[in-house]
Structure formats: structure tokens, C-alpha cells
């Protein structure tokens, strides 16, 4: 087979169609199959903003992008080699994601008059026919017709037959990329176990698609992407939101603290609530509150009671938590606040990704209200980053901001998951009952300046806390001017000391000193990594540094930054981390912005790197 194939080190496919076309399932199946084959892989779905927009419209287009390779893959976000479209709207919405000279596989039946109209092509214009796609290689399929032909006599209704048509496409794509349909066959058998006729139909269509490739006389160039040399180990596919959920459960298990989530649904954070609510057998308690304020304040109540308390939200919902975050800072109770960022401001672009809530996380509260801020950098990294957020919250007695975003939340990658036993321990700072006659001092601190956690039920530790300024150690209300200044600085110093318990910053890639440093945070990781790798390969003196801990920074960050002539900071916002860097270190760091609700491609970053030489 492979003899007819060109060998590629990586390939990117974008499946697109109507939300009813089964695009996400198709993508998932290709992902698992190619991961099982041994490729490194990274994926990103692109859901329509509408609940279920009318069939065939631009608003109803659903996409799934997958990049896989025989080398390490860091981002799904680049332009694709192959665009598979089920209808005209899918083509229109995604053509700008295709590489020049790339390939299009189009279901012609999705380009009839009705579909063209719904996709808002001018009357009489069919892009498949008018030569407008001449820069690309276009292959058309009659998917519906072929599916119907395959299932003739199966006894299934038209609707049910129609629902299998994604399998035809998947089979065909398996053939092009030299992947076998075995895994998917098993999946189908399990999923429809109760309906053998459906199992049979799907498998039949899947195989038909595959065989269509073999038997048809299309001049299709097949592609082979060899297995990657990946670190040996056991892997699973991991998406950002579930990774966050699992990270929280792991922190709960390792700390011995029961997990409480107070949350109010919001895109793209809701899936963390959904996922956690399925793990009650870990003692996970999820409370769907009446609003975001109740979500966080119920979590504060649970934290007071000794739970590992968490609240999840996005954009407008995080804004609503502002006042209560201030309370948590004053109470000095552990609390993890998860912001799965989306496009803003206001309601903004709820289903799109952005990194524009960083300044809010770092500075957006009344009064001097510092707290640690931690950002995940890849889907699977959400696990480790949120685990760290929990550790810091619990051990340093403070609320912690954990930043994810829509891209991480829904993106996926293979994950060499850890053993439970290998996870860092998390040690709650419980106050112990005192000897008779001693008074408990709720705001007395340890060397980290953390205060002890005295939870109701323990005799002798009865105490009252609140949002008014407190006297040092006793925690009594204090209006004393000097005490206030002392406490403001103490709270700041407590957060600064978190730097003692986090790893030093490392260079991800590139030379330790050099001309250009690309400084990133959050979900731009993959795109920057890919771009810097390319640039280094091309001989440029450029390195990549990615900060996970933004407040406080690792202690050596400044000295790293000073090792380069130029620091550039790509962000999916109008320049936020770059402001903090400039202020803190007086380094003339330059921001690179992309504020389009979609991730950077590595080429965009590469261009910026190169422009500095």
C-alpha cells in the first residue's frame, strides 16, 4: 500500500460540516486511530456559536481540526493540508484555514442550490464549478448517493441511512492516510451494542468509504505519516476541560480534602462542572448555584468548612465574582478560581478563545488584593497547572486564579498520564487543638506567612473571620493605621513567598543567551514552540520561554529575560503580560497581538520572529 504514498512528517486535516453531520465524532475517531498508530497529535474542535443553527447555514458549521506527525506536534492551530467539507457553508467558513495548494474533499450534494443559498453564495455561483478554487486541489464525492447505495436493502429508513454518511467519509480519509478502520469498528460495536442493525450499517458504510478509495480511479495522492518517536509509556487522549476536572480530583485525593465545586454554567467552562458531577464516587460535591456570586461564596463557605473549594467560570461570570474574591483574600482561605477565558469584552464571543483576562486576574479588584495566578499551556497541562493551583491555595492559605481558555478547554493531545503515587504531596495546614487555656490566634502565620486552617467542629479553635481589616495574629477587627499598612504588606509578601515553592523558570527551547526571546503564557505554547523550533532550525538565535506562574513570577525570570537583546510577547489579546513585564523589569518587551478569537498559527509567530533579524 505504502508504495503509492508520499511520506510526510506531519499532516493537518480540517473536517467541517453541519452540526448534524457528525463532524466531532469523525474527528475523534481519526484522532484515536492515528494516535494508536503511533503519531503525535493535537486537535481542536470549532463548535458553532448557536445552539443548533438552521441546517446548511454558516452559523451552523461545525469543525474539527487535527494535526498529526512523525515528529512532535504542539499545536492543532496551523493551516491545514486537507479540508473536508460536507456542504457549501463549511467550505465558505473554512477556506481561509487551508494552505495554498492544499486539498479539498467536498461532498457535492452539499453544494446544491439550496445549500449554496444558505451559505450565502450569490445566485448561480457554485465555487466547485466557477474556478475560484483553482489554487487548490479539489476532489468531489457524492457521499449521500454512495451511502444510500451501500445500505440499499438494509431495511433502515432514509434518516438513519443519512446519519451514517460521516462513516463513508471517515473510511475514505483512513484510506488516504493509510490508517485501518479497526479501532472505529470496535468503537461502533460498543456504542450501538443494543442496535445490531445500526452497527452493521455503520461498519458497512465505513468500509465502503475505505474501499471506494482503493477501487475508484481517483488520482488521489495517498499520504503516509510514520509513527513518531515518542517517549515510551502509556498514553491517553486528553482534552483541557476534563484535564482540569481530573486535576482537581487528584488534588483532592492527594490532600485528603473533599472537593467542592460551586459553579454556574457558562461557555466554555461548563464542561468542568459536567465532568466533576460524574465523579461523585470520589466524594466530589458539585453545587450548581443560582449565579456566579453564590457559586463563589458557597465555595468560600465550603472552604471555611474544610473542603478543597473551587469555582469555575468565564468572562462575565468571573467579573461577577470580583467582590467575593476580595473576601477570600481577606479571609486567607484556600480557594481555586478557574477562568476558562473566552472572547470579550462583555458577552463578547462566547464560543471563541482569547487571553484577555490576565490583567483582571492580576489587578482587577478593589483595594490591594494580590493573589497567585497560574496559567495552563496545553490541554493536558491543565491537569498539572490546576493541581499546582490547588497545592498553592492549600499550602499558602490563599485564593488562586487558574487561567485556561477556550482553545485549551476543547483542544486535545495525547497524554502520558502520571501515576497517582508520583504526584507531589499537598499538605493542608490544619490548626491543631490547643492545650487548655491557650487562646487560638487565627491570623498567626507559618514561615510561608500562611495562616492555619481551623475548621468548625474542632473544640477550642472557635473564631470569627470577616472582610474588615484585621489585627495581625488575633484577626480581630482593627482600624489602626499602622496595622493596616502592615497587613497590606504582609498579604503582599505572603503571595511573593509563593515564589519559594514553585520551580525556577526554564527555557523551553533555543539558546540560553541570544538575540530574541519569545515569551509566552497560556495556550500560545504550541504555536510558539513550533515557530521557535522552526526558527532555530533555520539558524536564528531565538529562544522560547513560557511562564506558567504569572503571580508571582519565578525568581529567575528577570535574569532569563536579560539574556536576550529583544523580548517579544505574543498574546491573544491587546498586550497584557507585556505590560506586567515592562512595569516589573523595565525591559522594552514588545507585544504581538492576535485578537481574532482563534489561536496564532506557528507561521504567524515565525514571521514576527524573523522580522527581528
Amino acid at each position, binding site marked *: 500500500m505504502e508504495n503509492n504514498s508520499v511520506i510526510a512528517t506531519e499532516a493537518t486535516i480540517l473536517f467541517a460540516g453541519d452540526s448534524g453531520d457528525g463532524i466531532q465524532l469523525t474527528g475523534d475517531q481519526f484522532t484515536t486511530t492515528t494516535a494508536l498508530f503511533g503519531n503525535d497529535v493535537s486537535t481542536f474542535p470549532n463548535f458553532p456559536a448557536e445552539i443548533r443553527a438552521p441546517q446548511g447555514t454558516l452559523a451552523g458549521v461545525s469543525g474539527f481540526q487535527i494535526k498529526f506527525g512523525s515528529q512532535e506536534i504542539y499545536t492543532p492551530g496551523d493551516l491545514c493540508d486537507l479540508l473536508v467539507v460536507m456542504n457549501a457553508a463549511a467550505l465558505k467558513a473554512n477556506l481561509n484555514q487551508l494552505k495554498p495548494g492544499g486539498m479539498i474533499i467536498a461532498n457535492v450534494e452539499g453544494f446544491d442550490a439550496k445549500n449554496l443559498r444558505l451559505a450565502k453564495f450569490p445566485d448561480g455561483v457554485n465555487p466547485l464549478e466557477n474556478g475560484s478554487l483553482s489554487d487548490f486541489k479539489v476532489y468531489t464525492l457524492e457521499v449521500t448517493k454512495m451511502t444510500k447505495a451501500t445500505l440499499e436493502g438494509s431495511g433502515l429508513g432514509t434518516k438513519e441511512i443519512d446519519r451514517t454518511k460521516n462513516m463513508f467519509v471517515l473510511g475514505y480519509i483512513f484510506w488516504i492516510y493509510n490508517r485501518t478502520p479497526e479501532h472505529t469498528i470496535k468503537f461502533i460495536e460498543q456504542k450501538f451494542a443494543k442496535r445490531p442493525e445500526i452497527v452493521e450499517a455503520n461498519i458497512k458504510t465505513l468500509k465502503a468509504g475505505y474501499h471506494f478509495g482503493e477501487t475508484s480511479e481517483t488520482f488521489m495522492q495517498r499520504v503516509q505519516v510514520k509513527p513518531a518517536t515518542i517517549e515510551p509509556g502509556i498514553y491517553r487522549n486528553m482534552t483541557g476541560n476534563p484535564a482540569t476536572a481530573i486535576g482537581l480530583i487528584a488534588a483532592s485525593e492527594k490532600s485528603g480534602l473533599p472537593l467542592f465545586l460551586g459553579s454556574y454554567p457558562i461557555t466554555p467552562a461548563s464542561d468542568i462542572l459536567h465532568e466533576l458531577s460524574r465523579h461523585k464516587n470520589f466524594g466530589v460535591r458539585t453545587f450548581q448555584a443560582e449565579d456566579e456570586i453564590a457559586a463563589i461564596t458557597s465555595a468560600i463557605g465550603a472552604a*471555611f468548612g474544610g473542603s478543597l473549594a473551587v469555582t469555575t467560570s468565564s468572562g462575565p461570570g468571573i467579573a461577577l465574582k470580583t467582590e467575593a474574591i476580595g473576601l477570600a483574600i481577606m479571609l486567607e482561605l484556600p480557594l481555586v478560581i478557574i477562568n476558562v477565558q473566552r472572547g470579550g469584552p462583555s458577552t463578547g464571543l462566547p464560543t471563541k478563545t482569547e487571553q484577555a483576562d490576565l490583567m483582571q486576574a492580576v489587578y482587577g479588584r478593589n483595594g490591594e488584593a494580590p493573589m497567585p495566578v497560574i496559567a495552563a499551556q496545553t490541554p493536558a497541562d491543565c491537569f498539572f497547572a490546576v493541581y499546582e493551583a490547588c497545592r498553592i491555595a492549600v499550602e499558602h492559605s490563599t485564593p488562586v486564579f487558574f487561567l485556561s481558555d477556550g482553545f485549551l478547554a476543547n483542544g486535545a493531545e495525547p497524554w502520558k498520564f502520571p501515576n497517582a503515587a508520583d504526584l507531589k504531596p499537598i499538605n493542608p495546614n490544619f490548626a491543631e487543638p490547643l492545650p487548655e487555656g491557650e487562646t487560638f490566634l487565627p491570623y498567626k502565620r507559618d514561615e510561608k506567612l500562611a495562616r492555619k486552617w481551623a475548621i*468548625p467542629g474542632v473544640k477550642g479553635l472557635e473564631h470569627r473571620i470577616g*472582610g474588615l481589616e484585621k489585627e495581625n495574629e488575633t484577626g480581630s477587627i482593627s482600624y489602626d493605621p499602622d496595622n493596616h499598612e502592615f497587613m497590606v504588606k504582609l498579604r503582599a509578601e505572603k503571595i511573593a513567598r509563593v515564589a519559594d515553592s514553585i520551580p525556577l523558570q526554564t527555557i523551553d527551547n533555543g539558546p540560553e543567551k541570544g538575540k530574541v526571546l519569545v515569551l509566552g503564557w497560556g495556550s500560545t505554547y504550541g504555536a510558539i514552540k513550533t515557530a521557535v523550533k522552526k526558527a532555530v532550525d533555520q539558524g536564528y538565535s531565538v529562544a522560547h520561554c513560557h511562564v506558567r506562574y504569572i503571580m508571582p513570577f519565578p525568581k529567575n525570570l528577570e535574569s532569563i529575560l536579560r539574556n536576550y537583546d529583544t523580548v517579544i510577547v505574543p498574546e491573544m489579546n491587546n498586550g497584557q503580560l507585556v505590560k506586567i513585564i515592562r512595569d516589573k523589569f523595565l525591559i522594552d518587551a514588545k507585544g504581538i497581538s492576535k485578537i481574532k478569537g482563534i489561536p496564532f498559527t506557528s507561521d504567524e509567530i515565525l514571521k514576527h520572529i524573523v522580522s527581528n533579524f
Partner: protein
Amino acid sequence: MSTTQTEKVPFTAKDLVTDQDVRWCPGCGDYSILKQVQTVVPELGLNREEIVFISGIGCSSRFPYYMETYGMHSIHGRATAVASGLKATRPELSVWIITGDGDSLSIGGNHFIHLLRRNFDVNILLFNNEIYGLTKGQYSPTSESGKVTKSTPMGSIDHPFNPLALVLGADGTFVARTMDRDPIHMREVLKRANLHKGSSLVEIYQNCNVFNDGAFEVFTDKKTKAAETLFVENGKPLVFGNDGNKGILLDGFVPKVVDLNEHSINDLWVHDERDRVKAGILTRFFDEVTSEPHLPRVFGVFYVEDRFRYEDIFNQQIADSIRLKGKGNLDKLLSGNNTWEVK
């Protein structure tokens, strides 16, 4: 860390006094409430460390600082939500919410009604002084319309909430009213509230002698109290007035004040705590005292209902899930169901 404490250690009202100076205005009705709570709490068969007082912001919300138990002075309007999280996760604790008319009915109205429908087993003491005390005298959602205050020099425009009617509308399961100046009654009501297995709402008429002095004087003053108040007791006819000379009967759905010299006590409406419709009528006894004839204001337990408590099922689901799926195994969770090996 185990915090369960089974052995009960008796304590007294004095043990509940903290080292903080009580900072309400001299003469404030809050003092009496503090006193009654400190008197009642030792009689409830609880250990001090099992008790938590949670408040919002307001004069009334200073309360937890004066109770030598666990406590939190949270933020304005959110005590109910904080308490929900605590009670959900620590159902064995005795949780008391202290709140004002502004705290619970203005900014905190939403959490208040949601807590009630969820029926967490907490006791809510709503200090109703019909004014914002701490911010020095603006009208509140319970102030009568037309009230002249700092923010309403020409009289307030808002039609006030009827707090107990709102509580019934939100499916509250224990609804009661008492007053700062009747310590014995207050203590009785507090004890009943504590016994109720669900959200117990006790509205306490509380005099703010600085910004709304005398708001409840007709009900609390010895001279007028008998004629203007009706203390209801389950199974007892609705009798009030000087020497119990008056009663209430129902003319269809309409309550009427009658003279017991002219009517038999047997004709009177007999209080039934389990009747939500009639409790609803009692909450609407809100006549102007100046109109004649007028209904007296009602005190006591209006309504009691048994309904499942949120925290019970919340924690039952955890237990059920463990029973069905086995206690969660972290390594299994980490690996998931679909893995592959790279060699």
C-alpha cells in the same frame, strides 16, 4: 482531620461572650436578640464548636463577633450563599444565618429565596428594623412607602416587600415572626426554629433607635401591645386584645376581627401551622393601625412543612455513587478507558 465530637460538653450563656466590645448604639434592639440567642443556644444540646454563625454586612451582621462559636462576617447579602456551601459540605454543623432587612431582602434577595427553596437545614434570623442602619438611615425594602429618609426626602416610592409572604412564595418551610422586646417569645420561637429540619426563617422586629425609632412601638409597647398583636399557637383559636377580648374569624377567605363578648370562641379561626393557604392570609395582616377596624400584627410560628433537605440528598448521592461504582480510584481516573502504549 477528624472534627466529629460526640461527647456533649455543657456550656452557659457566659461562655458565648467573646472578647470583642459590643458596638451597637446604646438602646439598639440588637442587644436583646444577642442576649436571647446566647440564652437559648446552650439549651440546644450542641457543643460550642459545632455551631457556626454566618452574617452579611449591616449593624445586625456584626453579631457573629459577639458569639464565642465559629463565625463569619461575610459580604453584603451573601451570608445565605456562604452558609449553603458550608451546610452542604458539613451537614452535621448547626448553622445560623444573621441578616438584616437590607442584607437579606435588598442585595441578598436572590440567595435568600434560593436557600429557602432548597431547604437547607439552617436557622435564619432576619433582623428587620425597616431601615439601613449601618449606612446611617436609608429606607430598606421593608420600609413603608412614603417614608422620608436620607435618600428619600420626599418619601420613598417603593411598595415594600411583605417578607413572610415572600418566604411563603419561595416555598419556605418554617415561617415565624417575633420581636426584640419580647424575650420569652423570642426564645420560644428560636427553639422551635432550631428544631425544624429545614430552613427556618425567623423575622425579628428590631428597633433601630437611632434611624427608625419606634417603628414597632405599637406592637411592643405595653400600652398597645395586647390590642395590636396576635400571638398564634398551633391548634389554638386566634384570640387577642386586652384580656383576650377579641378574636379573628374567617368569613369565607376574609379574616374579620370580632368582639368575644358577641361571638363565641368556637367560631374563631383555629391556627393550623400546616396550612399554607391560611398562613398566607396571616402574613397579609398588615393593616394600618389607624384604620378602624383593623387586624392585629401576627407573631409566632405561621407555617411549618416537612420537605427533604438539600444537604441530605446531596450527600446521599455521594454515598450512593460510592455504593454503585465503588470508591473512586485515582489511577483508574488518570488512565481513563482508552489508552495506548508507546514502546
